């Protein structure tokens, strides 16, 4: 192993980390705000990829144009699912909502198969085989794009949460739902908006996944797991933590693959997950107690 393979792995991984952050942001938000473990988040990403596939094939549009249509669609979808299926269960503890999401994930996976078949798909785009040379290292163009998308989305969500009335209401509901309700905040609506924003970020995440890699109806599961690693690393519900978690996971995978081999690449993330869970349960950057 040479210095080159390690440093190239590190840089490539760091760039890809932006994709990780972007796809995990929704997962982190719904957990942070309402303690909802959305195990169907992976299917949300794959749904975005499939819809993008449908629109870009039908209208001959670039996936980056299509994503502008997808964001509102997934926003509404997230809002409705949260309102109709998840909100009524919020008072019953953590498990019912988790298990409902589990059911949704099973339904979604099999619906994808029924609608789009089991074959591999990929979002065709002119970037997928382009590359950029950074510091003398080849990096796929899409990894670089992912890096910036990850940062921009994180900043955008952060601005929304801190600078808007709704954002402040979300924060109030996060800290104390009961008090927020007394203050006249419609907590159900706030929860639905949170889920909607989470789903909208998944539209971007899913598009990036579909462009950079390929996808099938069952691709959601491995991405969900990666999402959990990112979220646990960054601290559940911590928006900048999610970005940091994503970049860190990308970085450690990239370096890890150079040392332990590509076969164990995914293991690297899981080992970090385990260590963080054991020693830093609030995430590496977690401040306030997450139970």
């Amino acid at each position, binding site marked *: 192993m040479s210095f080159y393979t390690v440093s190239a792995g590190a840089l490539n991984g760091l760039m890809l980390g932006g994709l990780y952050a972007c796809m995990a942001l929704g997962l982190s938000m719904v957990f942070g705000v309402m303690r909802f473990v959305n195990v169907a988040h992976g299917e949300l990403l794959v749904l975005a990829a499939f819809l993008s596939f449908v629109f870009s094939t039908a209208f001959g549009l670039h996936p980056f144009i299509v994503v502008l249509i997808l964001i509102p669609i997934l926003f509404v979808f997230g809002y409705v699912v949260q309102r109709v*299926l998840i909100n009524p269960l919020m008072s019953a503890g953590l498990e*019912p909502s988790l298990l*409902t999401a*589990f*059911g949704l994930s099973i339904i979604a996976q099999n619906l994808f198969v029924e609608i789009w078949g089991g074959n591999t798909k990929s979002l065709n785009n002119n970037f997928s085989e382009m590359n950029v040379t950074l510091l003398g290292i080849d990096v796929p163009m899409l990894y670089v794009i992912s890096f910036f998308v990850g940062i921009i989305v994180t900043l955008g969500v952060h601005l929304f949460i801190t600078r808007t009335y709704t954002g402040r209401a979300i924060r109030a509901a996060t800290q104390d739902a009961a008090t927020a309700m007394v203050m006249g905040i419609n907590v159900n609506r706030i929860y639905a908006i949170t889920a909607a924003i989470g789903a909208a970020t998944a539209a971007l995440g899913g598009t990036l996944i579909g462009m950079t890699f390929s996808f099938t109806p069952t691709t959601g*599961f491995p991405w969900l797991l990666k999402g959990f690693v990112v979220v646990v690393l960054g601290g559940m519900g911590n928006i900048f933590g999610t970005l940091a978690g994503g970049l860190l996971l990308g970085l450690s995978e990239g370096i890890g693959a150079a040392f332990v081999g590509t076969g164990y690449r995914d293991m690297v993330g899981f080992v970090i997950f*385990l260590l963080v*869970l054991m020693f830093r349960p609030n995430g590496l950057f977690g401040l306030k107690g997450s139970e």
Partner: protein
Amino acid sequence: MMDKKYSPWAILILVTVVLAFVPSMGDRYLLFIAYFLVLNVAFAQSWNLVGGYTGLISLGHAAFFGIGAYAAAISIITFELPVIAGFIIGGLASTAFAFLISFPTFRFKGIYFAIGTLVLAEALRIWMINWEYIGGAQGMQFPIGIGFRLTGYFYIMLGLAVGSTALLMYILRSKLGVGLRAIRDNEDGAQNLGVDIFRTKLTALMISAFIAGLVGAVHAGRLGAIEPYSIFGAAWTIGVVNIVIIGGMGTIFGPIVGAIFVTLLTEAMADFSGIHLIIEGVILILVIRFMPYGLWGFVLKMLRRIPLFGGTRA
């Protein structure tokens, strides 16, 4: 939950006796279905103990199943141990794994257990795929002719299903059972009552893993060829969660009802593999929302309205 006028032991014995006669009916397809039914019951009771009675939602039960399968395969194929010894080693290996993962997953209440088991099961699967000593992705094949006939496997699995159900019934009446439910209903409260939370959870998880490991081991023997992608696949976890919740989590007979429902639905829709999972998913969501104790809980509630079955109309 359980109505006093029902004697659960009587039901269990009756069901056992009826199932024990299945092989002698001479219909091999019935035996084929019955085998998957008892497999599902045994595996579901394993999940029910942690998910239903202790409030630990395990989303990685495939790992316990898979470890049992592989430990048995290694014992029987590589070390040429007797088949039954291999099965027991399968159960024990799975128990040991449960012990190991309890440290990271029990430190925090509730939800981390679900996420932790989900991730750990996948980590384990990747490990097994890469581990060439046990065949890597190629898996392992039992020499043809080793093991039991299909009837033999059915009786072993029936034994596991009945044994695990009886074990759960016994545990529920013991001090352990009281502790489990106390933790499920209110962990802080349980602590104040003097329940040793960690030890109680650990005991439940280890028993659950032992059953799941045995089920995996026996099924591996019957399959004859195993490989990590499907033995450790999330499909096993999905199946068991569906069965217990649809049947009724935290009830003794719920998993049996759920297993009957899911096994028959799976068979009836064998031609449309995706559709039956969609149906199960929809039913799962409806049950969570409207029948917290599943189909079995719903049946009991209805029965109580009929005077013959004891309840007042209230």
